């Protein structure tokens, strides 16, 4: 078994993009993938749309298709339900890898509009649903004996925005 361990340790990602992912937090495990297809077969997104295949996305990274991957919406389609991770016999953490991909994509200005909008809201209000919190809901909360003053903190996200989101990504 010692040889096996050594082999795993000396195995190197097959492309410079894979190496780049491997260097990102969460991307470390990409080289372990043997392309068995367990992830795709476990994936609910793949089961409802042909365009998304987690195994193929990993394959594209391993092949070094950097621009194609970063400019695509595919890495953003993972719901991070982690069913594939649970079953992957090689212990590849796909959701983590796709997070790493998204972070690189974001740094280079590729964020799908749906994400962009949500991120802007959170960084502005400190939470997601300020606009949705209506008088009707306030009444419901009151009826149920719940606090109607939700008291979300906005200052902290403003600080984070300044520090981590200076680039064009959230403009």
């Amino acid at each position, binding site marked *: 078994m010692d040889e096996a361990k050594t082999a795993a340790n000396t195995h190197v990602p097959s492309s410079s993009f894979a190496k780049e992912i491997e260097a990102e937090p969460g991307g470390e495990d990409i080289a372990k993938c043997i392309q068995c297809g367990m992830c795709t077969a476990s994936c*609910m997104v793949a089961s409802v749309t042909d365009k998304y295949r987690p195994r193929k996305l990993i394959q594209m990274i391993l092949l070094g298709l950097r621009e194609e991957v970063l400019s695509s919406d595919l890495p953003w*389609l993972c719901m991070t339900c*982690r069913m594939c991770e*649970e079953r992957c016999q090689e212990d590849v953490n796909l959701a983590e890898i796709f997070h790493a991909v998204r*972070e690189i994509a974001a740094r280079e200005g590729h964020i799908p509009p749906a994400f962009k909008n949500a*991120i802007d809201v959170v960084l502005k209000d400190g*939470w997601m649903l300020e606009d949705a*919190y209506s008088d009707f809901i306030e009444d*419901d909360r009151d009826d149920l004996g719940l606090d109607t003053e939700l008291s979300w903190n906005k200052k*902290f996200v403003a600080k984070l925005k300044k520090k981590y989101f200076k680039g064009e990504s959230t403009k």
Partner: protein
Amino acid sequence: MKEFALYAGCTTPVRLPAYEASVTKVLEKLGVKLIPMKDVNCCGAQYIESVSHTAFAAMSGRILAIAESMGRDILAICGACSGSLKIVKHELDNDEKLRAEVNALLEDEGLKYTGTVEVKHLLQVFREDIGYDAIKAAIVKPYNGVRLAAHYGCHVLRPPEIVHVDDPENPTIIDRIVEIAGGVAVDYTGKTRCCGGPMLGIDEELAGKIGTDKIDNIRAANVDGIITACGFCDIQLTQVQFGDGTEGKERIPVLQLTQFLGTALGIDAEALGISLNKISPEHILAMQ
């Protein structure tokens, strides 16, 4: 009386106040007091998490630090929030550098994450802090064989080595509570599959298909209702039954575990917000 700091998250207080209310009332009945957290922010799940891991860690880290300042462990009732808080706690506990960076951001508020706080999802509190025997002893109005499908929620269960809630492929906590309350826990195909909730904000059509797969499998098992323990899953599993192609199909009511259990504990249905449920669970309650 055991006490927890309640982190309700963004979605539940607005979209599902009945969940928040029923959790508070049921736990109180079972000897657990909740103190709502104030001046908190979103945990950063999914969106901030996707673009800046450090900002995400800071957002969840701040929530953890506030709980530490309250001297209480956190109860999170939404899958995404409990997942984020647990993952970030795990990272902060194992990554000195990240912890230093987060703590630097918290310093001017007088907050500091030290690692003493624990994060629990609602299901853990039932199993670990209250216990099945105590739940059983508190049942005053048992159900009479009502058939229910449990939906646990992906972020509640996975990754198991970090969240420590239940067996990710064969979870049992909701099922056991259903049985304890006199219901029949019904197994169905794809029990641990995602409801499609996280896809809602990205691609509504796909989210609808994923949710429909879930509902179809549950329907095939011939149940009276669905029991969940995540606000987001509840909303998605309800909403998907009102989408395209659902006309003429009988809708399966979705009940929060705490609403289901609450009535069995003798708590008034109105106090549990059951009248706010979009699909009336009347026939389930009638089986008491």
